[in-house]
């Protein structure tokens, strides 16, 4: 599979790399991991990125590649991944006298992303990182909106289970 030229890669890097890095950091919660994944994304662009040039949305192409890179990174670094427990999430919210924010929930979900299968990982990232609607997610990954809705429910249940297990293991 053909890649892009150095000039095209340079242009893509200048234009999109900060956005890609920010996304990777949001998914991984690790600046060092984001460094690794951004380099991986643009290496893949140079080697295999022929389809990038025809992509209607360059950002969408790069994000799909970045997501794959991040999911791989999470699998390789599973032991280093530390999840925020549900109890801690609630504690942090109540500790400040406020409700748990969507942003807190996002951190919570990203903390156990490595435990999800590929489809659920993509849905979680589109829902929590991209703020996409269920209908948009359905189109993006090629499933029905009902499936997206069901998977989001399953993700929430898995999050609670994972948090409970993490808490149990820590004590």
């Amino acid at each position, binding site marked *: 599979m053909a890649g892009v030229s150095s000039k095209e890669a340079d242009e893509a*890097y*200048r*234009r*999109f*790399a*900060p*956005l890609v*890095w*920010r996304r990777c*950091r*949001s998914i991984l*919660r*690790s*600046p*060092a*991991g984001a*460094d*690794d994944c*951004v*380099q991986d994304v*643009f290496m893949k662009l140079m080697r295999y990125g022929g389809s990038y040039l025809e992509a*209607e*949305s*360059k*950002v969408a192409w790069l*994000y799909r590649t970045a997501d794959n890179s991040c999911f791989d990174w999470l699998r390789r670094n599973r032991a*280093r991944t*530390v999840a*925020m*427990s549900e*109890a*801690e999430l609630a*504690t*942090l919210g109540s*500790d*400040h006298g*406020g409700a748990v*924010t969507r*942003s*807190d929930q*996002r*951190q919570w979900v*990203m903390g156990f992303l490595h435990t999800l299968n590929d489809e659920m990982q993509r849905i979680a990232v*589109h829902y929590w*990182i*991209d*703020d*996409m*609607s269920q209908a*948009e997610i359905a189109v993006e990954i090629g499933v029905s909106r009902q499936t997206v809705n069901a998977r989001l429910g399953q993700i929430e249940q898995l999050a609670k289970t994972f948090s409970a297990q993490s*808490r149990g293991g*820590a*004590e």
Partner: protein
Amino acid sequence: MIGSDKHISTRYLERALVDDLGDAERRLVDQHLATCQDCLQRHESLRFELKALTPHVMSLRPAAPRRSVWAIFGSRWLMPSLAASAALALILVVVHGPEDTLRAKGGEVAPSVLLHRARGSSVVALAANDKIAVGDRIRVSLSPLGSEVVHVLFRDDRGELELFFSGIAKDTPLPGSLEITAPCVPVTLWAWRGGDASLVEQIRAGVPALGQAVTRRLECE
């Protein structure tokens, strides 16, 4: 593009910033931004964050991957503001203590910085002499919050710098936590009001921005 909450999704705001939208999508985004202050603030905050990130990201190519001594728990999510960008010029003085205060030069009290440390299942407010250890997660609160841009950075004693938050802080505590990973290295928090992004580079270069930012030193146990 427009979510169930009637706002533009983050994905489309990001694409708009890097000119990755078709003409029809671009028109829809522009029309929405012209009438929705919330989305306009998010758009401007995202623009500011990307600008602040750019020097670091550009340094990665073709440099070898960097390794941070800490992991930031969470993305900074920015609730930016256009108006904010205009209101950025407050000069701050340094106040030390468990609750450091960003104080405007004219005497008007600005948001305070309060740190919480999560260690295991306990969460406590960090007093001035409290120390950090590997595994701790540090939570940052700013209160009360107004409609001004606030920046929070952490810089460790090895020079690693992380932009923790940049934008309008609508939530408190700020989203995400600083996780202290091995080996523990003392960390300094910097926080300031206003849109002076040049301070990021000053702090990155190790130049103290005294008089313009609150600092908080976190020593290791």
